[in-house]
């Protein structure tokens, strides 16, 4: 059982989801998975060497991760209310239409 490979697989799944998903909430879930993969690596490596340092790093990482999540979710709600959809492609289309209307 190797936790480095496990966190690498988690990271790969998160990056794949980040690149392929078009829903904003799914993109946010992908970012959460990437953060989980990083913290998994920290904690498992540190606990395998008998250090409490990994757990302390995890708590610091969580504090920043939670604050960033709150800001990202707030922006996500604003964008969805403004454009009426949470699909990135549709948001881009609406914005392009608005830009072309403004040019005319």
């Amino acid at each position, binding site marked *: 059982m190797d936790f480095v490979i496990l966190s690498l697989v988690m990271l790969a799944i998160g990056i794949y989801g980040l690149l392929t998903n078009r*829903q904003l909430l799914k993109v946010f*879930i992908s970012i959460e998975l990437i953060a989980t993969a990083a913290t998994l690596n920290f904690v498992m490596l540190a*606990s395998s060497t008998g250090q409490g340092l990994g757990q*302390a790093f995890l708590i610091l990482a969580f504090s920043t991760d939670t604050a960033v999540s709150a800001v990202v979710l707030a922006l996500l709600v*604003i964008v969805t209310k403004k454009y009426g959809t949470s699909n990135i492609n549709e948001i881009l289309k609406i914005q392009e239409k608005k830009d072309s209307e403004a040019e005319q």
Partner: protein
Amino acid sequence: MILEILSIGLIISACLALFLDEVVYSVAALSGTFLFTALLYFENGAPYAAIFQFVVGVGTLAILFLSGEMLSDKTTKKTSHTKLSALIGAGAVLSLPAIFLSVSSSTGTYYSTTFGNALWNLSGVDVILQALVLLTVALGIAIILYERKSGGK
């Protein structure tokens, strides 16, 4: 054996969280990911990390459930059983390398640090990170206020 089962569950729930069509079910699968991560931490002798993972996971999931209900399209089609079983199979296959492969690690000398000492030694980093968090929040608020102001004109 239990670590292997937990890692398989972790990868399967991560796959389900990303590729299920309904957002609410995705968030439910993400709760499984957080739970399996917390259990992995606990099994590896990191109880504080497990507790923090669990508590932060519960908070994140509550917010995600609310925003998922608010933001999701009600017209999205339901996930078929074929796709569901394909996702579970893909997750199980993806978790195999973690069980059967291993990377070589150097056997260096490690000095053991207790959790309390590590927290105290990192208190300076904590202050810097808190400042960064406050800066991010202030930047977010400034962007929202600027958007509102420019939108009102």
